[in-house]
């Protein structure tokens, strides 16, 4: 397990104060899952994302938001009203001992409370502050508001999703909440490494979600194509426009996906197709080659490929294709991933117990190593760590705590 004590974690038990909403909560989760001591700092009524659906058994309740539960594993929770002046001075005390603050407020909000990076740096020059916002801390659009779909659109990613003659489509599952938070985690770790190995000082790490999403499809080179040809890359539907075969193909019992890139892979596939269909057409010399070799004969080749995939099930295509060293992949849905033999054999699903919603399976994460553990705990109850932090660490008495509670500070 990571972070059990100071010496054996993947990363040390850095104290992270997590003020981020849905745009940045994944950063705190990653840091926590990797071993940091992450404390979610929530308004007394609970973080806004506790009220984001879906909910456990569809009951709207601050401890039952499945959104909150997913993005807040391995974190603790305290309540604190940072808009209140007492709350602000308490927050500054927390910052004195913190390594990291992660936030995703509208640009300028923390400054307006006297809690911006410049103010906090004076309290703790070793502090790393990480901001995850739609458009970054500066520039003409830094004040723009954005939900997931708006960031997907503004990055240009959305232009590439869906069918060519249909409106651009968003991706399900609010995909823009991941890339920027991942970059922010890498950036935060780099800033901490730099602080601890070299400079002794922290810094501000500013991650714009729009730009993170731009880098997540950059193989399509939207700006290069515009500058070169005054044309725009666009969506192509379920099959790739250049590489053939590449994309989704109908099969006996649904869909199969495959992508043939090298000349060797084409040799392997065309032989297999010939074995199954007996159609010599597929072996033609003009179809041979790698990557874009089949672009001019794309439609012809796809007809022949579909004639073949139609005859086999997704599982047959996947297993036999991989045996032949071809990149053939099944189309999984959510339940099949939870049942997936591969993920289960790897210990990917980790069961975590939560005092209100009970046991559920959560992803361990994308990294496997003896040096890296799994998520340590389910999401915290609101204010679960108030006593630990306020009494044990900051030295408030139980009575002080009661007063802070009645005055609405915590």
């Amino acid at each position: 397990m990571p972070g059990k004590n100071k010496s054996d974690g993947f990363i040390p038990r850095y104290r992270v104060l997590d003020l981020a909403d849905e745009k940045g909560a994944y950063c705190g989760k990653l840091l926590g899952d990797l071993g940091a001591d992450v404390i979610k700092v929530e308004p007394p009524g609970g973080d806004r994302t506790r009220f984001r659906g879906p909910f456990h058994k569809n009951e709207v309740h601050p401890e039952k938001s499945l959104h909150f539960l997913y993005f807040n594993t391995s974190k603790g929770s305290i309540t604190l009203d940072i808009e209140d002046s007492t709350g602000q001075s308490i927050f500054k005390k927390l910052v004195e001992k913190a390594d990291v603050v992660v936030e995703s407020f509208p640009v300028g909000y923390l400054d307006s409370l006297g809690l911006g990076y410049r103010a906090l740096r004076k309290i703790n020059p070793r502090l790393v502050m990480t901001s995850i916002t739609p458009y970054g801390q500066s520039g003409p659009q830094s004040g723009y508001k954005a939900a997931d779909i708006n960031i997907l659109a503004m990055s240009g990613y959305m232009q590439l999703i869906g069918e060519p003659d249909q409106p651009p489509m968003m991706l399900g599952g609010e995909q823009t909440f991941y890339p920027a938070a991942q970059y922010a985690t890498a950036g935060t770790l780099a800033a901490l490494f730099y602080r601890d190995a070299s400079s002794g000082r922290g810094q501000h790490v500013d991650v714009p979600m729009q730009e993170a999403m731009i880098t997540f499809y950059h193989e399509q080179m939207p700006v290069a194509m515009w500058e070169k040809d005054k044309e725009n890359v666009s969506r192509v539907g379920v099959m790739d426009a250049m590489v053939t075969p590449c994309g989704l193909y109908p099969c006996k019992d649904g869909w199969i996906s495959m992508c043939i890139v090298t000349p060797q892979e084409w040799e392997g596939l065309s032989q297999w197709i010939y074995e199954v269909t007996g159609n010599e057409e597929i072996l033609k010399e003009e179809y041979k080659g790698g990557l874009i070799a089949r672009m001019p004969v794309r439609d012809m080749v796809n007809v022949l490929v579909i004639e073949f995939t139609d005859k086999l099930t997704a599982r047959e295509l996947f297993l036999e294709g991989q045996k032949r060293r071809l990149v053939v992949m099944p189309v999984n849905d959510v339940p099949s991933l939870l049942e997936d033999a591969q993920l289960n054999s790897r210990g990917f699903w980790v069961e975590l117990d939560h005092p209100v919603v009970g046991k559920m399976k959560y992803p361990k994460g994308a990294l496997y190593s003896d040096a890296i553990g799994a998520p340590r705990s389910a999401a915290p109850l609101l204010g679960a760590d108030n006593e630990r932090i306020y009494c044990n660490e900051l030295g408030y008495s139980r009575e002080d705590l009661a007063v802070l509670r009645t005055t609405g500070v915590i």
Partner: protein
Amino acid sequence: MAKKPLQGIRVIEFGLYIALPLATRLLASMGAEVIKVETLTSLDMSWFGPIYAPGALQLEYRPLKRNVTLDVRQPRGKEIMEELLKKSDVYITNLGEGALTKYGLTFDHVRSLKKDLIVLWQTGLGSTGPYGGYKAYGRLMQHACAVSTISGTPDSLGVANVSYSDYHTSVFNAMAIIGALERRRRTGEGCFIECPIYESGVVTVGPAFLDYQVNKVIPERRENRHRFFAPHGAYPCKGTDRWCTIAVTNEEEWKAFCGVIGNPAWTKSPQFATAADRVKNAKELDRLVGEWTSKRNAHQVMERMQKAGVPAGIVSKGEDLANSEHLKSHEFYKHTEYYAADFNAPGVKWPVAGTSPVFSEPIYFSETPVMFGPMHKVGQDNNYVYGKLLGMSKEEIKKLTKEGVFA
């Protein structure tokens, strides 16, 4: 020049495609010395992209890296690889187990060369288990990771023209390496990490995993509509294939939205009174919103919505990104030279084919800004790496070049 976070860290990159070189590019932008080990005797298909400017795609992967040619299939090549690894901090590869074993570069062997080496193996579906060693491309991962099954229309999966989870893998790779460096700083220990493309994408399915476990809900493909908010979508605007997205996520934004479109009578209709009503009648609502937006320019729709505090954004095309004053203010795109591949000539002889734009990195450090730099030619750093780092003589380098070890 101020010091950079990863200055003094040497990384050996041995692999292909997108996720691996992007990860090390990110490390290089933070100051690491990344040495890309490759051989032109085995062709990297990505040199042919994009078709309108072959070679320009490499700008995404190669800025700031040192490039050496080395054929590890030859005994002397393998020895030199070992010498390089002994002088390095990090080794990252995405080659298959079969190839690595054939070359005599198993992970046990590599780790025995240098005790505190950090080794990252990027795999497809993972190294063990029933599908261990299976091949995978990021593009197909949007299907294997269920993302395409929760996107699109009820009748068809929403597919992105993108190597989907390669990008997630790239940042996980970099994150893991930086974390491992911090761990090594504290403990003196190296480690071995595996990062599969599969799991990198699976985690992005998110709360839907929990929703299925406790509520047996499988996410519906609801086009651009949101399960809890409306209006929410990409609305047609003036021009060809021009769209502006609008997301009204609470009552305040709904009132502001109605104000922007001039409070037409239909906004007072009981079918749109509450968020639940609007979600229920989203199709009709979308039609009415689309009527308003289709008479207007996408940028204007966005600006008017934003002025009133309504989340909105155009569906950017390449031209919008190229012309974005906002991205210009961040100097997000850089222009630099790229080379045209000629597999009959050594990499250092390849001609400059032009200049092309490429993103820098989406992380802005206040004290140690990320770096951007030119792309080196293939083999350009042979003299530096073999001469200066490994101490070989000019004659030896010449000899090994002639023998095809550096090819």
